[in-house]
C-alpha cells in the first residue's frame, strides 16, 4: 500500500513542520529549530511521525562553521590594524614607529604585524625610523574587513578566498558541525488531503475518559528508556522469609508447629533430656544463666519425679541411670533456651501418638560473636512419634529433609552424639562449591527421656542446620548478616526462592 492511499494521523505541529520542510528545500534540523522555535527534543518527536510515515528522510551532513575569534571581533568592530595604520599615515607625511603606536593605540606586537603586512604589500616605505605611505588613495584589505563585519553581524559571507588568512591571523576559527538535512519524499500538496490532524496531550485526565475526548487525543509517548526513580516498597526480611518457606515445607510434610518460652527451666533444657546435672554442657561456658530471676518453679507433676529417678537409677527403663543425687533446685534454675529440643521436651507431656512436630526457635549460647558464631541463633528441631517407627525410618526422614528441604540428592549419614538420643546420626549434604556440609542431625530419644513421660513408642528427635543452608543458597559467608541491620541489604537482597 502506498502512502498516497492511506489516511495519516499527525499532530498539528508535525503538519506545520511538514509544510516548512516542503517549502524550504534541504532545510537542516538546526534551521528548522530556528524557524519553529521548538527545542530539539520536541522537534525530533514530531519529525519521528514524518519519518515513520515516509514523508521525509533524514540525511546526516557535516559542515564547517566559521566563527570570529576575539581578535576577529575586535577587528570587525575597530577595523583591522593595517587599516588603522594606513588611515593615520594618510594624514601625515611621515611618522616615527613610536609615535605611530601611540596614534594607532595598538600594542607593539600588533603594530609589528600591521607594519610588516603593509610593507609586504608595498604600501609603505620605511626610511630609518620614519614610516610613510606610498599611495594615499589605495584601500587596504577592504574585502577582508567587509567579511569580518558580515561575520560579526551574522550575515552569510563568502569566505572561501580568505579562509587561510582568517586562520593564520587568528581572526576566525572553523568548527566541524554535524547536522541533519531533511529532504522531502512526498510533497505536502500530494498528501494534504490524506492527513488528519490530531490533538496531543501528556496526561490522560478523568474528564477525557468521561467526555470521550480521548478518542481524538493522542497521548504523548513515554520515554521508556529512562531509568525509573528509586523505590523501596515494603518487604519481609529475607532470612525471615526463608524461615517461612521452611515452615511451609515442614507443614506440607505433615509436621505441626510447636513453640516455647525463650527463658527456660534447666529442667526442660537439660534434665528432661537426661543430661546429668554435672554435665559439662550445663556449665557457665556453655549456657546463659539468668540472674533476674535466678530460679523458676518445677511443674507439679509425676514426670518430674520420674525424671529424677531416670537420672538416679534409670527409672523403670532398664538403664543404669547416672547414679547421683538429683537436685530439684538445680533443675529449677533459669537459663536461655540453648537448643530447640527443650520445646520438644515440653511437647512430650501428653504427647499425641502418632504425631510429628517441628519448631523454629531462637536459641542462645555464650559464644563470642564472629563470622561463624552468633550468640542468638535459629534452630529448627522436631520430633516424630509412632509405635512402629524404627531407626531405618529415621534415616528415611533425614533423606526426605535432604531432598525436600535442602533440595539435594547427594547426602550421607555419619554416627553422631547427643546426650538424649541413641542411636544418633548426622546428615551431610554435598554442596557443589563447599563439599560435604552438615545439614542435620537426628536420633531416637533414649528411653530415659521418653518413659518418664509415660511414652512407650519410639520418638525420633531431629534438627536441621537451616542457617547454613540459607547462607549457602545466598552466598553469605558472614553469619551475622542473617540479622543484618543494613538497609541496603534489607531493601535489595534478592528473594531466596525463584
Amino acid at each position, binding site marked *: 500500500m502506498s502512502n498516497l492511499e492511506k489516511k495519516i494521523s499527525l499532530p498539528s505541529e508535525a503538519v506545520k513542520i511538514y509544510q516548512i520542510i516542503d517549502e524550504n528545500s534541504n532545510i537542516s534540523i538546526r534551521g528548522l529549530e530556528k524557524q519553529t522555535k521548538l527545542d530539539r527534543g520536541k522537534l525530533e518527536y514530531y519529525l519521528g511521525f514524518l519519518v515513520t510515515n515516509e514523508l521525509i528522510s533524514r540525511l546526516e551532513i557535516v559542515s564547517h562553521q566559521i566563527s570570529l575569534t576575539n581578535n576577529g571581533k575586535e577587528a570587525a568592530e575597530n577595523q583591522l590594524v593595517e587599516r588603522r595604520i594606513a588611515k593615520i599615515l594618510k594624514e601625515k607625511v611621515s611618522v616615527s614607529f613610536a609615535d605611530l603606536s601611540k596614534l594607532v593605540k595598538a600594542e607593539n606586537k600588533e603594530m609589528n604585524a600591521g607594519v610588516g603586512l603593509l610593507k609586504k604589500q608595498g604600501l609603505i616605505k620605511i626610511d630609518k625610523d620614519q614610516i610613510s605611505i606610498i599611495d594615499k588613495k589605495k584601500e587596504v584589505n577592504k574585502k577582508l574587513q567587509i567579511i569580518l563585519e558580515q561575520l560579526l553581524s551574522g550575515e552569510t559571507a563568502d569566505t572561501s578566498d580568505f579562509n587561510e588568512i582568517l586562520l593564520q591571523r587568528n581572526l576566525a576559527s572553523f568548527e566541524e558541525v554535524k547536522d541533519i538535512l531533511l529532504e522531502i519524499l512526498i510533497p505536502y500538496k500530494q498528501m494534504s488531503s490524506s492527513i488528519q490532524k490530531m490533538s496531543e496531550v501528556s496526561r490522560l485526565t478523568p474528564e477525557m475518559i468521561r467526555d470521550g475526548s480521548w478518542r481524538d487525543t493522542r497521548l504523548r509517548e513515554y520515554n521508556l528508556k529512562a531509568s525509573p526513580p528509586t523505590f523501596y516498597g515494603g518487604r519481609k526480611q529475607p532470612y525471615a522469609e526463608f524461615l517461612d518457606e521452611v515452615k511451609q515445607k515442614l507443614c506440607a510434610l*505433615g509436621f505441626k508447629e510447636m513453640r516455647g518460652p525463650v527463658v527456660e527451666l534447666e529442667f526442660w533444657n537439660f534434665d528432661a533430656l537426661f543430661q546429668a546435672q554435672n554435665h559439662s554442657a550445663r556449665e557457665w561456658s556453655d549456657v546463659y544463666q539468668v540472674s533476674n530471676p535466678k530460679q523458676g518453679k518445677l511443674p507439679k507433676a509425676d514426670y518430674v519425679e520420674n525424671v529424677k529417678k531416670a537420672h538416679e537409677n534409670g527409672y523403670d527403663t*532398664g538403664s543404669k541411670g547416672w547414679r547421683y543425687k538429683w537436685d530439684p533446685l538445680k533443675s529449677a534454675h533459669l537459663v536461655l533456651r540453648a537448643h530447640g529440643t527443650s520445646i520438644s521436651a515440653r511437647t512430650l507431656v501428653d504427647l499425641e501418638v502418632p504425631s510429628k512436630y517441628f519448631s523454629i526457635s531462637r536459641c542462645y549460647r555464650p559464644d563470642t*560473636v564472629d563470622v561463624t558464631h552468633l550468640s542468638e541463633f535459629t534452630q529448627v528441631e522436631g520430633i516424630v512419634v509412632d509405635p512402629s517407627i524404627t531407626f531405618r525410618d529415621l534415616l528415611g526422614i533425614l533423606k526426605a529433609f535432604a531432598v525436600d528441604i535442602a533440595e539435594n540428592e547427594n547426602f550421607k549419614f555419619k554416627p553422631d552424639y547427643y546426650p538424649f538420643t541413641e542411636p544418633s546420626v548426622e546428615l551431610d549434604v554435598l554442596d557443589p562449591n563447599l563439599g560435604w556440609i552438615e545439614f542435620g542431625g537426628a536420633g531416637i530419644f533414649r528411653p530415659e527421656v521418653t518413659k518418664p513421660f509415660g511414652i512407650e513408642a519410639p520418638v525420633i528427635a531431629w534438627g536441621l542446620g537451616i542457617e547454613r543452608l540459607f547462607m549457602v543458597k545466598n552466598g553469605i559467608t558472614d553469619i551475622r548478616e542473617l540479622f543484618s541491620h543494613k538497609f541496603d541489604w534489607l531493601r535489595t537482597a534478592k528473594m531466596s526462592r525463584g
Partner: protein
Amino acid sequence: MVSIKASYKEMQEMLGKQLSIEQLEDLLSFAKSEIDQYIEEEDMLVIDIKTSNRPDLWSPEGMIREIKGILEEESGIPEYEVKESGYVVKVDPQLASTRPYIACAIAKNISLTDYYIKQIMQLSEKIDYSYGRRRKRSSIGFYNLSMIKSPIEYKVIEETHEFIPLEQTEKMSLDRILEEHEKGREFGHIVKEYGHYPILLSADGTTLSLPPVINSNDVGKITEETTGSLIEVTGTNFETVNVVLNILCQVLVTHGAEIYSVKIEYPQDIYNESVITPLFDKEEIEINLDIVNKYLGTKIKPKDAAKLIAKRRFNCNSIDGNILTIEIPPYRKDILHWVDIAEELAIALDYNKIDPTKWKVLTTGGLLPETESENLVRNILVGAGGTEVLTNILTDPEILTTRVNIDNQDYVKIENPVTSTYSVMRKMIYPLLINVLSKNTHETYPQMLFEVGEIVKLIDKKVITQSNAAFLCADADASFEDVHKRLNQLLSLLNTDYEIRQVNHPSFTEGRCGQIIIENKECGIIGEIHPSILENNQIWVPVVGFEIELPLIPSLKCKVKSTY
C-alpha cells in the same frame, strides 16, 4: 565436643596405611570424629570428637583402636597383661568427704618421643577439663617412677607443708601455691572447698603432688628419658578415676609399655576393701536381638550380631537364642542401656548401608494459630510499606535504656554474659528499631521498618515470652499521621476497636504520644520519638512509630507463654 591436634603422618603410621584426608575422615566418622582442618606445614590435623562421654576416643590411639575394629584388623576388647608391682597407696580416711578415690598404675619400658609425650599431655588435659569437670571430678598425674618409694601416702596435710611445684625453682607452702602459682589460682578453689589439703607423698617423704592442683617439679613430670612412670588419677567418683586410668594405660600399651598394678588400701570409711588398679571390672549387658532389630528396623542374626559388636571392640560372651551377653570394655562407662548397644550394631553395619525407609508417619501438618496471627500482622505491615527487620531478643541494656531515655528497669538479665552487648532480654522492640535507624542514616529516606517478634518480661515473679509488633517511620516529612493511619489500618483490618489516650512517655515528645487502648487495656504506645533521642542516636530526621502487644489484640490468637 572435644578438639585435639594430631600428626597426619603418625595417624597413617599407626593405621599402617597411606590414606587421603578424605579417606581418613571417612574412617574417623566411625569414631564419631571429624577433621576440622589440616595444617599442611605442620603436618597437623585438628580433629573434633563429637562425644562428650567417650574420653577413650580423645586421643589418636583411641580413635585408631576404633577404626581398626571397623577395618576388621582387630576385634573385641583389647587386652594386655598386667603384672604386680608391689607398690601400695594408703588412703587417708580424712579424705572420705572430699576427694576419696585414687587409681594408680605403673608403666615400665616406656620410650616415648616428644610427640607422644605431648599427645599424652593433651589427652590428660582434655580428660581433666571435660570428663574430669575441670579437675573437680577427676585429675591425672604422671611421675618419674625412679624417684618414688612404696608405700605412697594419699593423705591430708597441714597448709605449711612445702614442695617445689612444677615450673618453679624454690619450695612453696601449700597455701602459697594456691595464692601465687598459676595453677593454684586456676584450680585452688577446688581445694579451698575441701577445707584441707590432699597430698601424695612417697615413702621417703618426697612430695609427688597436691592433687588436683599441681605436681612436684622434681618427680611430677615425664620426658623422653623417662623409662618408668607412676600414673595416678584422684577424684570424687570411684568409677571415673578407674575409667580414666584404664584409658591412659591403654594408650601407653599401644606404645609398648608394660603395665604393673598398684594396690590401693582404702580405709573402711571410703571403700570396704583394697583395690588393685588398673581395675578390670568385667561388666556385661544382655540384649534381646528381637527387640534391637525392631528398634533399628533391621534383621540382624545372632551370629552376625556377635561379629558386629566385636568390630566395635566389645566381646560377645554368649549367645542364647536371641539373647546376647555383651561384655563392655572397662574404659566405656557410656553404656547404660541396650539402646547403646543397638547404636554400636548400627554403626558396625554402617549407617550408609542401611536402607532408609520411605516416609510413612502420616499426619496433618500446620502452623500454630499464634504464628498465623503474627504472619497476618507481618503481611499488613509489609503492605503498609514497612521493611521487615530481625533484631536480637538478647541485647544491649544501653539500647533499651539510655538511648531511648528510659531509666534502668526490671529486665530479665543474664548472669554470665560474654559481653554487655548481649546481656539483657528486651521487653520492647522499638528501641532496637531506633538502633537500626541510627545505623542507616546514609540510606535513602523515607525509612519505614517493622519487626514482629518475641519479647521477655517479668510479670508477678513469672517470666513470660510474648510477641509484639513495632513499626517506625523516619523521614524529613514524617508526622504522627503517618503511623496513626497505619495503626488504624492494622487494627481495623483486624476488626479491633481502639482509642488513643494521651500519655507522657520518656521516649516520645510530650503531647505527641498516646497509649493504644483496646477493651480498656493499655496494649501499646504510639507517638513521635523525642528529638533528644534522635540527637543521641544521630538520626537527623523526625521519627514516628508505634508498638503493640499482640496477645492483647482480641481477634488474634497470640498467647503469652509462661516459663513456669
